[in-house]
């Protein structure tokens, strides 16, 4: 059983592509080898900035010989048929065998495919893998036609068994495979030959290359932590940065530096972002001061001066970068203290979307909505409105221009510098949240008001101009906005009638906009010159154009708004289903609940769903569902057949059996209990009350035939079933429950 070692040695592979490339190489090779009939014991893939390596252990030396038997034409068939058969099998007539078949004598062919040596198969599979490698971006170089992520310099491909190592004969676009590689670009640049994976890894290590990225990561982590520990500092963990840096070096040499005092007053987020984005430094925090006071840079080389020159250089570059940052910050603070009016004006000329006006227009809408939402979330309306007006002003600041990922974070600092209350400043930082399913949800009332308004404005805006997500396309991240609304509402237990809120906002977009340069006037940065649905929508809404005072048209647009809102609610429901499914709640349960009135109150929907979900896990719940469905089915059939609705007047006096009487009694108890519990929104209690019907319903069906010949009895029993159905409908639409 030979072992296979492949190395593709190239110019520097982008760090972000390495992990995926390792996996692709492993999969392409193992899949190809297996498909060709080889087996293997294990396969491991590795990467450094300059190489992709695959080591396969226990590869079969040959693919097995296969035999295939194929049935041909009858022996008395015309010659042409026989010739065709010979052609397709590649055999001659004397290699065929005539056998008796049901319809007479028939030719049979046995095709033998001899096994092939592993080297031959490896060469084919590797060449195909190189030519079709799925790099996210690939390139040509020199005069060649080959594509790789960066120029490919050499291919190592050897099979090793007890007899020694053998190079697999292979040439791809002028590169012939061999058994040599090179070490570190500067510390050990010479070529050397290897005999197998262990030899390869050991020689690479001597040649200052750490092959395994996981080892490089561990090395960087532990050395960085040691360096920090020696000063009493802690490294700010950053797994993404760690993986990236491990993909930039073959021989990691972490070096620790100190941030000059003059930069320590910069916000820690600024220090961290600048060092990470520009220089790929790790930040070191001093736990005593809580500040970021140092950094770790990871060099790719050991130098005679122990990195002194390298560290000095990095320190110098950092100082230049942080001087820029400090300059931006000082300028921004000056503007912040002056009230940020320039920024607010500047946002008038920043287009949010050409059909939805400028950022300034958008902020005005959000502010109005935040004011409206404020009482629902327990926020002061003036604060909510002001917070919304300030929250996005930092988009015009120099710092956010330089580091877009600091949006909001800087907004908070600038709002504080402007002397705004803490709650308003926090809203600037928090109003973008939550950004994903696991991100923290804001809970401070002002933040919630602005965060919710921000997302609702986004959703209603894009719904109004009919730019909804389709398939995998969601360029405006509307799914994320919808999930944000859901998580804000649920996380803060907000009782909002979403539909009405959407309609109000859709209709009021227009009313807000009274300035002559804003949305909906078809000028400046607003709408383009082509009139369309959305323009009319907004023009109408803004009370401009043809809208004012015309009741009929107003009604028409109100109707449009209601339709958009209904459609948007359905989208929100879809996202809610995805969200709840991740929480372990079945989609059919959510559907059953969504069929109930009040489904635009998401908290209500979730509380109902959770309680129903819990009940359906119990034995009573499962059987009850069956009973309710059975009652429903019998009733529906009878109603269809008779053309009437049995919904009134079951009378206990017509009850014939104990089971019927027991059901009457149980319903008499359960009905008011369910009603009261649902009214109080105590869904667990409602579930308990309806679950109590399980035994009586089961007993009833056991004892009684509903469709009795006696019409009076039949009608009475159907009316009794109707009470069961009604009891169920108080909770959910059980017909939608599966199973």
């Amino acid at each position, binding site marked *: 059983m030979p072992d296979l070692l492949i190395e593709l040695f190239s110019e*520097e592979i982008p*760090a972000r592509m390495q992990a995926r490339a390792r996996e692709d190489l492993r999969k392409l090779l193992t899949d190809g080898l297996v498909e060709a009939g080889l087996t293997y014991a294990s396969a491991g893939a590795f990467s450094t900035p300059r190489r992709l390596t695959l080591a396969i252990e226990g590869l079969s030396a040959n693919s097995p010989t296969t035999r295939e038997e194929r049935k041909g034409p009858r022996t008395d068939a015309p010659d042409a048929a026989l010739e065709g058969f010979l052609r397709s099998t590649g055999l001659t007539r004397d290699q065929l065998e005539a056998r008796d078949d049901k319809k007479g004598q028939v030719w049979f062919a046995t095709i033998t495919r001899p096994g092939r040596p592993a080297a031959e198969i490896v060469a084919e599979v590797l060449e195909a893998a190189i030519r079709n490698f799925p790099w996210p971006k690939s*390139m040509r170089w*020199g005069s060649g036609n080959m594509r790789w992520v960066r*120029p490919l310099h050499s291919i190592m491909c050897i099979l090793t068994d007890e007899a020694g190592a053998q190079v697999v004969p292979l040439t791809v676009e002028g590169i012939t495979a061999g058994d040599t590689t090179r070490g570190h670009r500067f510390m050990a640049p010479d070529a050397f030959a290897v005999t197998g994976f262990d030899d390869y890894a050991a020689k690479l290590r001597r040649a200052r290359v750490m092959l395994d990225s996981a080892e490089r990561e561990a090395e960087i982590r532990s050395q960085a932590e040691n360096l920090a520990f020696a000063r009493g500092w802690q490294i700010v963990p950053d797994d993404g940065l760690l993986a990236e840096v491990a993909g*930039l070096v073959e021989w990691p040499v972490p070096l620790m530096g100190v941030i000059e005092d003059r930069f320590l007053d910069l916000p820690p987020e600024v220090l961290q972002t600048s060092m990470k984005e520009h220089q790929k430094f790790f930040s070191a925090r001093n736990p005593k001061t809580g500040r970021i006071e140092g950094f770790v840079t990871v*060099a790719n080389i050991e130098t*005679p001066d122990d990195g002194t020159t390298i560290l000095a250089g*990095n320190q110098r570059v950092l100082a230049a970068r942080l001087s820029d940052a400090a300059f931006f910050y000082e300028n921004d603070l000056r503007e912040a203290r002056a009230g940020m009016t320039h920024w607010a004006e500047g946002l008038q000329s920043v287009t949010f979307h050409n059909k939805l006006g400028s950022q300034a227009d958008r902020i005005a809408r959000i502010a109005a909505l935040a004011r409206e939402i404020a009482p629902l979330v327990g926020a002061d309306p003036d604060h909510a409105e002001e917070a919304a007006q300030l929250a996005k002003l930092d988009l015009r600041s120099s710092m956010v221009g330089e580091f877009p990922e600091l949006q909001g974070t800087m907004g908070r600092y600038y709002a504080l510098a402007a002397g705004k209350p803490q709650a308003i400043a926090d809203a600037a930082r928090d109003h973008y949240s939550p950004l994903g399913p696991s991100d923290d949800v804001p809970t401070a009332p002002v933040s919630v008001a602005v965060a919710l308004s921000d997302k609702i404005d986004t959703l209603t805006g894009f719904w109004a101009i009919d730019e909804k997500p389709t398939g995998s396309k969601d360029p405006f991240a509307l799914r994320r906005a919808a999930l944000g609304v859901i998580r804000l509402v649920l996380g803060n237990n907000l009782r909002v009638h979403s539909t009405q809120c959407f309609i109000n906002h859709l209709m009021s977009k227009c009313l807000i906009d009274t300035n002559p340069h804003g949305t909906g006037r078809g000028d400046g940065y607003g709408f383009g010159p082509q009139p369309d649905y959305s323009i009319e929508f907004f023009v109408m809404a803004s009370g401009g154009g043809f809208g004012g005072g015309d009741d009929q048209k107003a009604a028409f647009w109100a109707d449009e708004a209601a339709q958009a809102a209904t459609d948007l609610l359905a989208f929100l429901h879809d996202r809610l289903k995805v969200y709840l499914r991740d929480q372990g709640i079945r989609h059919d349960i959510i559907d059953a609940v969504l069929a109930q009135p009040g489904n635009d109150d998401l908290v209500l929907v979730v509380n109902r769903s959770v309680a129903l979900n819990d009940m359906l896990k119990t034995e009573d719940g499962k059987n009850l569902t069956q009973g309710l469905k059975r009652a429903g089915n019998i009733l529906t059939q009878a109603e269809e057949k008779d053309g009437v609705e049995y919904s009134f007047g079951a009378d206990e006096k017509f009850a014939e059996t104990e089971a019927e009487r027991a059901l009457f009694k149980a319903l008499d108890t359960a009905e008011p209990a369910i009603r009261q519990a649902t009214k109080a929104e105590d869904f667990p209690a409602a579930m308990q009350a309806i679950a109590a019907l399980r035994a009586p319903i089961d007993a009833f069906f056991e004892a009684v035939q509903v469709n009795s010949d006696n019409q009076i009895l039949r009608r009475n029993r159907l009316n009794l079933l109707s009470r069961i159905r009604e009891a169920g409908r108080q909770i959910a639409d059980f017909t939608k429950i599966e199973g």
Partner: protein
Amino acid sequence: MTSPNRPRSFQEIILRLQNYWAATGCAVLQPYDMEVGAGTFHPATTLRSLGSRPWAAAYVQPSRRPTDGRYGENPNRLQHYYQYQVIIKPSPPDLQDLYLGSLRAIGLDPMIHDVRFVEDDWESPTLGAWGLGWEVWCDGMEVSQFTYFQQVGGHDCRPVSGELTYGLERLAMYVLGVEHVMDMPFNDPDSPIPLTYGDIFRQTEREYSRWNFDQVDTAMLFQHFKDAEDECARILAADPEDSAGRRIPMAHPAYDQAIKASHIFNLLDARGVISVTERQAYIGRVRALAKACADLFLTTDAAREDAA
């Protein structure tokens, strides 16, 4: 950084690069005599990276980026600066090693410094060009751009050119250990008349910053943009044969007009008179010119290996 090999002035770094690349066999060209934003715009790069004819050139290119003007006060930003540009077609297999040799030549020894190739894809929307490569880091500072051209003017590059661009001021400040560009020795500090970068450029940076940001006549610029665009189109549309029946397509004169339009656009941008939406449209107009020039260049003898 106190190696004896260390250069002493800005001009010495340029001279060493010139000598180094001359020794590798590049034709050492002179700067293009028009205002450009980067060395890539020099026809020796843009046009000569097209077609199959081998090419190897190195040159200094004065470059202008009006928006980067800071009145000579910022230690690192200038509206007029120098790039060193190397372009070799087809890209040789040892281009990385050649490049590292040039760093050694200017006193950056990769055994003492930390030299890294960090992913950076290059794209020029105005030239309809893109390529893959890296920014080269030395001790955490970007000292060069290293690009394998894949497309220029909308055409696939076959063969592929390798392009190296050094930001000379930044690189030299690092090599010379200078904190502010204006303090950098331009000639040898021990010269009878030592001159700093500031002695030569502080005044011009101030003047051009003012002109670029506040003074340049925008109505005139809009007109000049249009003139350049029209003239470019006219040249491109001209009969490739002259009155004597000789085939002389005029790709280079047309391309000059494209360069001109591009620089005028940069000035208008610095003046802040181009809105976000218009910006894209202007870039698209310059790209259309550059592409048409590339198309025409490919029909010339200079683009073909077999041509005399």
